[in-house]
């Protein structure tokens, strides 16, 4: 048996699972200290279905804590950004495009040093260890608590980031955590560097929060290993999570999508998660969310680390409905239960339309009985059309693709979407996030530039696939279950020797669970 826990901003949801079967599911309010909420949630689970803590084989936690803290600029530490690339890159120093409040919350300190590579692997300038030592001394003087290191073209060659990190670790000691941009983001220096800085800023909080998770479980008598869910839908161990809190940033939508897949039994589908203000649409391929290939802004900071590709439209249960039957994007949000007509309020919302159309039962239906039938039909049609268009935008081909609806606002959606066919509505979607977290799969990935000599392509591809499988096994996957879920081969233009960037991701079931 294993436990999946989703620690959201409002609720802490837990599920007890055996294979793909949900044995019990429960919700408790999230508490400031997190731990109390987790314990309360586990109590609820136990009340629904008694279990022996010793029988739990693994606990998986999904949390939006880190992304919320970053966006709200809470509990961030003093960071220094060190960029290797001089004499290039000096025109736009680190954090040049950050909102002022986040610059202040992180201390906004940055250093430029020599290093970096050209696109073809030549050095821009050699790394200067003495320069790094001088910078380290200045960091120490200024009380820097975490460092983000970036280097030009480090996704192609990370040697300077690694060497600079070794020097910094020696000079600053183990209390200062170091984040490398090449471990976090992709090509595009500012976006990758920004992601590394955000990760570094959360390093102290990562220690506290992950430690808190471990203590809560230990206090409960659970000795099973703890995992956290990552943006891509796979798990990471607690130690990895302490180093890479940014890997949890998008686990909310990811877990919701993966939970929807388990509940519906579908491996390839579109998922529409309808909340109070927006509908988030994502695509699952092989049970994993498709990744965005563009930059994603978080709290006004442009980043380019791997995030699920989610398209949001301004339609939710609380969306305002205009006299012309237009729906959204403005919403009453969490005030739905006081402001909507059916709840005695004075605002016509999408939920009122759903009640008037007979699609949902809530509040007092007599309060929407006066609505004109054609008007209601038009608003319902508008919602269906907008969501259908959103799903269609996200498809990568015109092949038929099932659509799964989850979320409290999914009552707004009709049983069929125009041009897309029947909608799948799993029964128990209230704890979809926790179920998504509890899927015990662990991954390994390689992202590397290979030189492909003529006639050796097949060997290189095989080597890359094997390396990804090995990494998944190292991370804790059962070798017999590991399969390649993503493979991407991009020849790099202008480069001699057929340089090809290969990205390969392997995923398997957690061993022993």
């Amino acid at each position: 048996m294993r436990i999946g826990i989703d620690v959201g901003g409002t609720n802490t949801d837990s599920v007890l699972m055996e294979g793909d079967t949900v044995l019990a599911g429960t919700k408790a309010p999230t508490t400031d200290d997190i731990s109390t909420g987790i314990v309360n949630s586990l109590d609820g689970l136990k009340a629904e279905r008694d279990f022996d803590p010793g029988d739990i084989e693994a606990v998986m936690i999904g949390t939006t804590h880190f992304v919320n803290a970053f966006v709200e600029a809470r509990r961030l530490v003093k960071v220094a950004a060190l960029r290797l690339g001089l004499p290039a890159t000096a025109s736009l120093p680190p954090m040049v495009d950050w909102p002022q409040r986040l610059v202040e919350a992180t201390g906004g300190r940055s250093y430029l040093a020599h290093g970096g590579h050209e696109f073809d692997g030549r050095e821009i300038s050699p790394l200067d260890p003495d320069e790094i030592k001088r910078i380290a001394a200045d960091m120490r003087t200024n009380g820097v608590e975490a460092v983000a290191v970036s280097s030009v073209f480090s996704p192609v060659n990370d040697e300077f980031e690694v060497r600079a990190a070794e020097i910094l670790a020696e000079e600053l000691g183990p209390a200062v955590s170091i984040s490398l941009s090449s471990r976090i983001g992709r090509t595009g220096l500012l976006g990758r560097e920004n992601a590394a800085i955000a990760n570094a800023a959360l390093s102290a909080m990562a220690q506290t929060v992950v430690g808190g998770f471990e203590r809560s479980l230990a206090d409960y008598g659970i000795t099973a290993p703890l995992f956290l869910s990552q943006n891509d839908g796979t798990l990471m161990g607690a130690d990895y999570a302490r180093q890479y809190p940014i890997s949890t940033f998008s686990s909310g939508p990811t877990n919701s999508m993966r939970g929807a897949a388990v509940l519906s039994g579908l491996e390839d589908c579109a998922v529409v998660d309808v909340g109070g203000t927006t509908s988030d649409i994502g695509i699952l391929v092989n049970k994993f969310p498709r990744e965005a290939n563009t930059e994603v802004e978080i709290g006004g900071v442009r980043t380019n680390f791997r995030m699920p590709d989610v398209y949001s439209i301004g339609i939710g249960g609380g969306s305002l409905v205009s006299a012309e039957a237009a729906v959204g994007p403005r919403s009453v949000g969490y005030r739905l239960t006081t402001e909507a007509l059916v709840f005695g309020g004075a605002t016509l919302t999408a939920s009122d339309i759903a009640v008037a159309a007979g699609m949902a039962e809530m509040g007092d239906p007599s309060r929407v009985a006066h609505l004109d039938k054609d008007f209601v039909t038009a608003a319902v049609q508008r919602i269906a059309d907008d969501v259908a268009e959103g799903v269609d935008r996200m498809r990568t081909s015109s092949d038929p693709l099932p659509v799964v609806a989850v979320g409290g606002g999914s009552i707004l959606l009709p049983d069929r979407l125009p041009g897309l066919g029947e909608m799948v509505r799993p029964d128990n979607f209230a704890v979809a996030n926790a179920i998504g977290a509890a899927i015990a799969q662990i991954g390994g990935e390689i992202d590397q530039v290979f030189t492909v000599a003529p006639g050796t392509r097949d060997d290189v591809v095989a080597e890359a696939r094997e390396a990804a499988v090995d990494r998944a096994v190292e991370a804790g996957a059962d070798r017999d279950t590991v399969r390649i879920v993503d493979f991407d081969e991009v020849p790099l233009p202008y480069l001699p020797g057929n340089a090809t960037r290969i990205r390969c991701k392997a995923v398997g079931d957690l061993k022993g669970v």
Partner: protein
Amino acid sequence: MTRILTVEDIDDIAIGAGILGTGGGGDPLIGRLLVQKAIRDGLTVTVVHPDEVPDEACVIASAMMGAPTVVVEKLPAGEEALNSLRALETRIGKTADFIIPMEIGGLNSMIPLLAAAQAGIPVVDGDGMGRAFPELQMETFGVYGVPGSPLVVSDANGDHVVVETGDDNVRMESFARAVTIRMGGAAYIAEYPMSGADVKRTAVAGTLGLAQSFGAAVREANQAHSDPIAAIASVVQDSIYGYAHVIATGKVTDVQRQVVDGFSSGTLKIAVFGAEDELVIDFRNENIIARMVDPAGHSEVVGVVPDLICVLDSDSGEAITTESTRYGQRVTVLGISTPEIMRTPEALKVWGPRCFGLDHDWTPLEQLAAPKQAAPAP
């Protein structure tokens, strides 16, 4: 009419320059950040119309050369374009009074603004391409007899190379590109030293202002929830470009790309709303030809280079580059005709369809088949 640009003006120019990039030219983002930082640091970007440039003034064209995808990783040191300007001044024994953009489409709308602000001289409202083109000989300056060289190309180390090829601008392009690759795939150039009289005779006038007007029209339409594409078309009508129509509105159904000879080449397919037709656009860095294909397979050219084939996001009106195009996007393809100076026989010899490997003669956009009635998105 001298104008000083604000940080907000730069936002508008970046949006407009994306549209004038016709699918290529690179994302203006890094350039926009550079110029906005320069303004915030206290430098001034002053713009003058070509008519105000004295005939005897010394004017030099400025640009980034190479791969915009390198620039997003290897950010400039900061003064590369200025260094090229200084080295070219030394070489020709004259001091530049004005800078003129080489290419208004994409990232290169911004680099000359930075160089001009750093040099403390005004930038001329105009350029040598009127859009984005892939090579340095494709400039009105050269078309009408101004030699491109001496050209100076500079890198982040402060190194520079002077390229002198007399009046052969094709060889200039070829040598400068070879140096650019050794400099890391992106470098910064000063070229086409010319007189104010040359500028008035050869530049595509008013294109910086046009980019800014496009951006402002898009921004204001989005704020007012009105149609940004109609707003762009109406700006065109008041400009020297003169004519624009919506070629099609539809949904992207397929994108194929490959790198051939250092160019990003490929094909984009769009299912046209309200018709059975498919719009097929071939691109080579920029969009070069659009064909409407009916269900029977009969194909008809509906737009061809040098006219501008602009693929725009139907909702926001902003440009979608060929690299960021993907299945499912709702797009409006806007055709914009070229001004007179870009469609003379001399000009077409340098950037007519055959210069891009197309077996096709140029037909002006306004003479091509009337557009299908664009239906609203379903």
